[in-house]
């Protein structure tokens, strides 16, 4: 399979007057098209920094990040980025929130808008387009945020703990929802999370980062005996607990 993302020896540190903090060191991995990667690690290990680097919001100090074989110089590669909170704007309707990205990139074309309408329809938001975000439930808000990202037709989706602001029940539902949508739309995605079960249930591979400065400690490929299972179903697979234990041990091994 063709690789969509290649990280080669990427390092990054934060600078402040108090000194230099190395956030990430020698990160190298590749992501194939259509893959779902989950990244886990202790808090403060630079998981979010890694996504910011891939998205091009910040530049690596050393190493290179290639997307579809080219260096990401902000703007020429299409990356969708979902943040921890949905950040739907209360002063806009649900519809104009969902089309915000298209509006910024001046891509409000009929074809794109038809696609948006289809997604709103498919994912149960068609009746809420004129409402304000505050009138939606937590799960609906996340779906709206995902549609806002998917409307840009990104080659690569970055998910930065997008479910962490939700309560546990909603979190399970939304995670199932979003992962299914992403698989159905055949998107490549990288999910950053601190929830191990979430990582195992959605990822094709789980990348474990070490404590700060973050380095890749291990990459665990995940496969379940249930074919085409949703994240919810995979939690019941017999391999699930084994993966959980492996990753759990790995995370606590170097404490």
């Amino acid at each position, binding site marked *: 399979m063709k690789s969509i993302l290649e990280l080669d020896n990427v390092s990054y540190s934060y600078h402040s007057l108090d000194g230099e903090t190395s956030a990430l060191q020698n990160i190298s991995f590749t992501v194939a098209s259509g893959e779902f990667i989950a990244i886990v690690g202790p808090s403060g290990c630079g998981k979010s920094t890694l996504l910011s680097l891939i*998205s091009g*919001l910040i530049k690596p100090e050393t190493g290179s990040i290639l997307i579809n074989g080219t260096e990401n110089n*902000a*703007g020429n590669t299409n*990356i*969708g*980025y979902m*943040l*921890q*909170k949905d*950040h739907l*704007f*209360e*002063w*806009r309707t649900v519809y104009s929130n969902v089309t*915000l*990205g298209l*509006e*910024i*990139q001046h891509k409000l074309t009929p074809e794109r808008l038809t696609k948006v309408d289809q997604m709103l329809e498919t994912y149960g938001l068609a009746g809420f387009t004129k409402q304000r975000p505050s009138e939606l439930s937590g799960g609906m808000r996340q779906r709206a945020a995902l549609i806002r990202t998917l409307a*840009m037709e990104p080659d690569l989706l970055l998910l930065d703990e997008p479910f962490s602001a939700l309560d546990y029940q909603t979190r399970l539902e939304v995670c199932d929802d979003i992962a299914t949508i992403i698989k159905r739309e055949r998107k490549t995605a990288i999910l950053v999370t601190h929830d191990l079960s979430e990582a195992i249930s959605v990822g094709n591979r789980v990348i474990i980062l070490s404590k700060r400065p973050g380095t890749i400690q291990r990459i665990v490929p995940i496969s379940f005996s249930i074919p085409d299972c949703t994240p919810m179903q995979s939690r019941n697979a017999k391999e699930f607990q084994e993966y959980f234990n492996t990753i759990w041990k790995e995370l606590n091994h170097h404490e």
Partner: protein
Amino acid sequence: MNKSASSKQTVSSTQTASLTQPLSSQSVSKIQKDFISSHQKRKRMIFYIRILILIAFFALWEFSARVGILDAFIFSSPVRILNCMIQMASDGSLFYHTGITIAETIISFLLVTGIGLFVAVLLWTKQSLSEILEPYLVVLNSLPKTALAPVLIVWLGNNIKTIIVAAVSVAVFGTILTIYTGFQSVDPEKIKLIYTFQGTRKDVLFKVILPSTVPLIISTMKVNIGLSLVGVIIGEFLAANAGLGYLIIYGSQVFKLDWVLMSILILCVLAGILYLITERLEKRYGRLK
């Protein structure tokens, strides 16, 4: 009505005693009705007492002036003020002076809002500019603007320019600081969202910063309209030959205290009206968050 209410009460109390089910939603419960009517009663009472205080104040004032407790020459009286008002209304000078003050207030208010918003946006666009100017803005904001007024007369002359500049100077620095601080307190993650869509700084300004600070801008405007009126009156005290502030100063100098107190009463009414207008505005646009 009283009778039926009391009979209903007995019915409902027996019902609540026998039924431990939650209240049915189809009809408003007795307790809810009582709650609403007692609320309305209280509202009405507050309204009547307010009116009563007003009437009592004027009645006491008039009475004291008539019996000689207060010297009507110095303290004037409601009837004298009314006569003065009628006379000045008939020759049009009442509307002239009031109109001038209102016009000056509105001009100053618009200038304060416009300049305040513009400079705040400018400071936000140029981070280093805001850091450089910060101490100057803080000092200018804390400076008692009345200290500027005599200088303004010398520089700008005894005219409307001085009044407007004085009024603008009262509110503009505070406005700049408040709105700029509001810009800075916008959630950085919301700004990041715009950048993830490869938006520019202009997109950040127009799609996040400005819309999310609309409630703050409205509440600043609410403060500013009052401050503008204060500024205009200060200006008129010093440099004017028309307006309510002029009438107050001139009236006190020639011992026409009817003019002074009438002007003060009109200012009370103006302040009330301005407050109502801004409150309407705030209700309509100020609740986006």
